[in-house]
């Protein structure tokens, strides 16, 4: 049942384009597509229902995966280099790397993370910088990688066995697997060609830092299966955001059988380095780190520290729910407990922090992640923007992409704001003009529910001297349609809704796989995770665990 509803939703979002055409409620809104979904779900269930049918979408589930490469993110690059060469946490070499385009909301989309000629050049410069720093102080940075005295590595003529040992030790940790004999001799050749042995070791390190074997997570597979090294790399990079440590590499060397995978997933998740994973997922999904670079210097409360504190709060909030709380989507999207941060008193008011730094927020004013200032301030440019807030809820929480503004639409004529007029009044035409209403009725009324939050996310009850009307509504969904008094009421419902329960696994799939979901993947890979997730009342930790396990077993 769950699956057919999910497929229905999936199909409804795939066909929701054209909502603007609909001048009435019936013909082409996502609601109509959803209601029409019986047929679609029949087709979708064909694969699983026909028991391995050849034509169904389920038929390919056992097929071998295809080799793929997935570039490390700048954070993964920095953190792996810092771990390998013992730099302080937070040392970065990637500041001048060009930003990666976002793909399907996530910054870790494997198709978007390409190496342009500009990035290739910056990778080369970063490698030079790292090598120079490391070899300036070899005792500090290289002792653990060198079979001889680290200082000897930088000498004119290091002993041959010392060079090979260093290349093998460094290569193992950068490539996340032992070097082949061919690779060792390739790096050895660099050393031999250099003016001195010491300089040669530097150049070999420079080359390893630019090798595709380091820069890409390579899932080249053996007989269609991930190798043991690929398994530990996948887990470490996905969960810890850094390459596998020596312990995982040693496990991989022993070989990781299918029966060992569950234990391995538990081990990786139990590690303190796993704590940041959930925050990375939610923050990336909802783009909440973007708030840290928002410039609102036209607001007297604004400081760069304030918006950074907002971003930090979002991380702490998720971390707290996943570590100390019940880890459910319901908590994430409706909790009123956050981690106290004095910098945010400017938004929340004077602090009333409890033990462990937990701050109880007024339950009438806040409900979950979307009432944190990080989200509210992000979608206010520079004023609260009901259209955008509604648009984001619909797209990111309900997985219902809105179509772009249609071609041929007459020039939008949103009237200039009149002093004393509210945003709600300003956008009234969106509801009355049938050309606008088809789409905007799906966005604006959700956005209006957030009227109680100002441009920095403070709770307000008056605008232009008038009490705020924060009412709104949801339309075009399966279970959430109706009127709501405010965001708190709406989010409390959304937090436990089928819409979110169906959407969140799709989003996590993108985070874990670095790819968008297609129907085949939904049935083969996501389906199992998603069903378990719904059955466990939306426990995000369980979903993550199931999906990682699934990811090891199935290469899609």
């Amino acid at each position: 049942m769950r699956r057919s509803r999910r497929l229905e939703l999936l199909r409804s979002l795939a066909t929701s384009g054209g909502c603007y055409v609909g001048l009435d409620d019936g013909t082409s809104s996502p609601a109509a597509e959803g209601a029409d979904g019986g047929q679609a779900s029949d087709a979708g269930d064909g694969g699983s229902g026909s028991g391995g049918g050849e034509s169904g979408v389920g038929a390919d589930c056992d097929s071998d995966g295809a080799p793929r490469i997935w570039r490390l993110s700048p954070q993964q690059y920095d953190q792996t280099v810092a771990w390998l060469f013992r730099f302080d946490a937070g040392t970065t070499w990637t500041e001048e790397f060009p930003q990666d385009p976002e793909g399907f909301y996530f910054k870790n989309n494997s198709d978007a993370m390409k190496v342009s000629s500009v990035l290739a050049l910056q990778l080369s410069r970063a490698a030079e910088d790292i090598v120079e720093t490391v070899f300036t102080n070899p005792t500090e940075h290289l002792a653990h990688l060198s079979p001889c005295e680290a200082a000897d590595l930088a000498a004119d003529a290091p002993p041959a066995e010392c060079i090979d040992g260093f290349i093998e030790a460094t290569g193992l940790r950068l490539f996340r697997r032992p070097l082949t004999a061919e690779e060792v001799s390739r790096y050895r050749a660099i050393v031999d060609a250099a003016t001195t042995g010491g300089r040669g070791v530097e150049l070999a390190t420079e080359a390893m830092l630019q090798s595709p074997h380091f820069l890409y997570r390579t899932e080249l597979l053996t007989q269609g299966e991930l190798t043991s090294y690929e398994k530990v790399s996948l887990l470490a990079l996905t969960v810890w955001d850094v390459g596998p440590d020596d312990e995982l590499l040693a496990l991989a060397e022993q070989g990781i059988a299918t029966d060992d995978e569950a234990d391995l997933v538990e081990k990786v998740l139990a590690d303190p380095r796993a704590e940041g994973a959930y925050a990375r997922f939610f923050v990336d999904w909802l783009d909440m780190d973007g708030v840290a670079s928002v410039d609102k210097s036209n607001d007297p409360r604004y400081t760069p520290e304030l918006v950074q504190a907002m971003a930090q709060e979002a991380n702490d909030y998720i971390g707290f729910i996943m570590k100390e709380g019940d880890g459910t989507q319901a908590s994430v999207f409706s909790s009123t407990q956050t981690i106290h941060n004095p910098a945010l008193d400017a938004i929340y008011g004077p602090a009333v922090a409890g033990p462990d730094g937990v701050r109880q927020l007024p339950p009438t004013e806040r409900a979950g992640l979307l009432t944190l200032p990080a989200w509210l301030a992000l979608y206010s440019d520079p004023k609260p923007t009901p259209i955008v807030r509604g648009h984001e809820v619909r797209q990111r929480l309900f997985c219902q992409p809105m179509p772009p503004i249609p071609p041929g639409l007459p020039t939008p004529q949103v009237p200039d704001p009149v002093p004393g007029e509210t945003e709600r009044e300003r956008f009234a035409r969106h509801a009355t003009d049938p050309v606008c209403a088809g789409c905007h009725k799906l966005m604006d009324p959700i956005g209006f529910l957030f009227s109680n939050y100002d441009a920095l996310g403070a709770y307000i009850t008056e605008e232009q001297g008038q009490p705020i009307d924060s009412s709104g509504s949801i339309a075009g969904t399966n279970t959430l349609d109706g009127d709501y008094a405010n965001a708190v009421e709406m989010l409390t419902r959304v937090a436990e809704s089928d819409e979110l329960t169906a959407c969140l696994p799709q989003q996590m799939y993108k985070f874990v796989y670095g790819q968008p979901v297609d129907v085949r993947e939904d049935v083969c890979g996501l389906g199992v995770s998603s069903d378990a997730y719904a059955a466990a009342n939306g426990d995000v930790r369980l979903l993550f665990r199931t999906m990682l396990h699934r990811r090891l077993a199935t290469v899609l």
Partner: protein
Amino acid sequence: MRPRLLVTDRRKFLGFLSGTSLMFLPALRALRAEGVQDLPKRLFILVQSNGGIVDAFSPSGSRLDFQLSNTLAPLEPYKDKCSFFDGLFVADGEMYGQIHLRQLHGVLTGQQLQNLEANEGLDFYPLGPSIDQVVAEKLEAKPLSLSARNHSITYNLVSWKSGNNVPIVPLNPVQGFDYAFGDVSDLGQVPAAQQAEYLERLRAEKRSVLDALYGEFESIRPQLSAAERSKLELHMEGVREIERSLDDLTVPECTLPIRDDLDVSGLNANTTANLDLIFHAMQCGLSNVATLLPVGAGDWGPVFSFLGAADSNHEMSHRTKPEHYDQQVAVQTWYMERFAYFINKLASTPEGNGTMLDNTICLYTTEMGDGDPHNVTDLQTVLCGNIDGYFKTGQYLTMNASNTGVLSAIADAFGIATPFGDPSFAVGPFSELRA
């Protein structure tokens, strides 16, 4: 956090680097065989985002007898070297749906846009490359694509490479410096007597690293599907570009900026730094094509606070407050001053029998007309300079046509087939522009 290294520290192995600043250097280029030197051909594009205010921009008068508006006043000294346009539109603008980023994607490509499988983040791609990239390919030049800011790149893409839908992510001035000068600036700091030795050693070392990398790429490549392989091949192309720039490395007969002296203290300073480095890169023959988009469209924050603006440029362009009109005019005047600043540098630098301006065509354009209704019509467009005397200048042209007529004229001047853009609607070079 990054332990930032001085450029002068980068190659400590040489030991003999001087810490002195630059830089009039004897050119290795002089050692090259003397040959008939054609004058270079160059393209510079400045894009103003968020549209402008049409009334404040338009000149008045007739085609050959006209007066510049106050906004255009910074170009007064170069009036006879420029053509000023009214009434251009983003080609087939209707499909662009009056959205900033899509108009940015269209204004230099003249292409239809393709929705890539509802990829919410990447939105729409143009179906073909932008004029700057095509000209760079024709000239075998390294194109610079710069911005004064680092922010959401989705709203910041105006240049598109041929072939594989790859957007060119604009670089901030520091990244731009590395890309434009990189090893050249290091070489410039080596005492003249030791440059040959330095260069020989640099090439040998880099080549041994690059050779190893090619080996690594080849060990992965055959195992990948076509789609995955294309990612790797793009990367390999970037590595080959490093190698080529190594081959071309000579000390330019020109002044280079110094990386650590770059003033990147804000939008105004960054834009000047961008323009300076574009100028130097062009003067030094390191790049012949550059595009500058100082501010992305639909921006956040009061980026023009140095002009007294308290709101974001995007909000100002919608004129939500009475003071926004004047502020938006000030913004547009600032853009024009920056454009004139660059033109002035070209015009004051002798080259051949004239100046660099005679060998550089400079396009200024907005991505939309009036920024408030997001009009695709009435782009504010100026074309200054020349290429081999191709362009007729000193005119005010009131058109009602796609801006592909301008893009096509630029393409034509560089010997590229026209019409430029989607053949279903792109037009050929405007005859009015032909000298």
